[in-house]
């Protein structure tokens, strides 16, 4: 059944591990930049505009307040985007399948998710989600990543077998398998690529 040994077994120099770590830190830096260039900047500007309000006539007040509320909505949208990059709220509240569906919905991706409603804990769900988001979401793309496939069509089957989270991914290809292995490998997960192209992931539950 198994056709390829995990990459980690062929990574004696730890090159793959270094790559994964570097990627993680670049992602953190990107999130910090987004906070700085987005929400922080908007809030600073709002403080100035609030100060200006005292200098303006009361007749302008309703319009100015409306503008400031629109600006606050934009700040919150940016904070939501950053929160999604840290740990998607829906992943915590509803689990892996709803979070992946929401990702597909937001990005307009063709992604089919089959799942029971079982939950697998923050670590396994977080690692699985991140791996697939890294593959699907341009937001996660690194400068040295290859251009994504045009309109990928991906299917994910999520289930529990014995005491493991088992994912079957169709349509992801080798790069998707590598990204999943990077995430679930350190958690004791095994990733195999079938001759059919299907990726089977098995991660022991916490």
């Amino acid at each position, binding site marked *: 059944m198994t056709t390829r040994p995990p990459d980690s077994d062929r990574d004696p120099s730890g090159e793959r591990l270094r790559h994964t770590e570097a990627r993680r830190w670049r992602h953190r830096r990107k999130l910090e930049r987004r906070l700085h260039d987005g929400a922080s900047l908007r809030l600073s500007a709002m403080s100035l505009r609030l100060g200006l309000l005292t200098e303006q006539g009361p007749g302008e007040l309703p319009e100015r307040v*409306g503008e400031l*509320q629109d600006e*606050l*909505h934009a700040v*919150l949208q940016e904070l*939501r985007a950053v929160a999604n990059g840290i740990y998607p*709220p*829906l992943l*915590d*509240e*509803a689990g892996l399948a*709803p979070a*992946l*569906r*929401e990702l*597909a*919905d*937001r*990005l*307009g*991706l*063709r*992604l*089919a*998710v089959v799942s029971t409603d079982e939950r697998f804990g923050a670590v396994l769900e977080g690692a699985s989600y991140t791996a697939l988001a890294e593959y699907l979401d341009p937001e996660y793309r690194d400068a040295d990543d290859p251009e994504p496939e045009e*309109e990928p069509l991906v299917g994910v089957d999520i289930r529990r077998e014995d005491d493991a989270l088992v994912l079957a991914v169709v349509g992801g290809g080798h790069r998707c398998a590598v990204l999943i292995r990077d995430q679930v490998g350190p958690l004791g997960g095994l990733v195999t690529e079938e001759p059919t192209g299907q990726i089977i992931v098995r991660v022991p539950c916490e």
Partner: protein
Amino acid sequence: MRVALAEDGVLFREGLLMLLRAAGHEIVGAVGGGDELVALLATEHADVAILDIRMPPEPDGGLTTAERLRVSYPDMGLLFLSHYAESHYLIRILEIGTVGVGYRLKEKVGSVDVLTDTLDRIQAGEVVIEPMLAKRLVERPKGSRKSVVDTLSERETDVLRLMAEGRSNGGIAGLLFVSPKAVEKHIANIFGKLGLHTDASENNRRVLAVLTYLRSQGAEG
């Protein structure tokens, strides 16, 4: 209007209370969780209950509490507030009720006008959906996914988007500058193309149309 409020964030709860009072509504009680809201409504009547989605009992007490309330008080309107506008929650809300329900972002009910309009429409039995979410559901960011909804004309898509916001036929006619008769015709076409030839009531068919739309755009599409 008599309003009950359940929200676990004290700051937001107090702010919303001030705004509700400024809008002239009567607050029958403001509590910090779903179980407290159920206890409150056992003795107090409310026209609309406002529920935070993410509150005790965790993780989504607003939804589980609303399910109980809809059974006990089917005529009471339900307004769900959340920090996130997600189709996952919208589908769950429509499963709880297809009449007199609303789903809005917390920061988008920040004026007397919007708050009152939202509550009035819910009390009138409409489905009020955050316009941003309704818009996102209709206008795909990219992709040319083939679905039944793609067979709709541009005008029919406009109508469906406004239906997804919970607008009445008259409201849609006004916004699109067409006659109510024309809107009815568009809606009949939409129902036809989506295969909704059921005996369901007009309102149920509307919600089914929106749900069909959501599902066709969603993961299984």
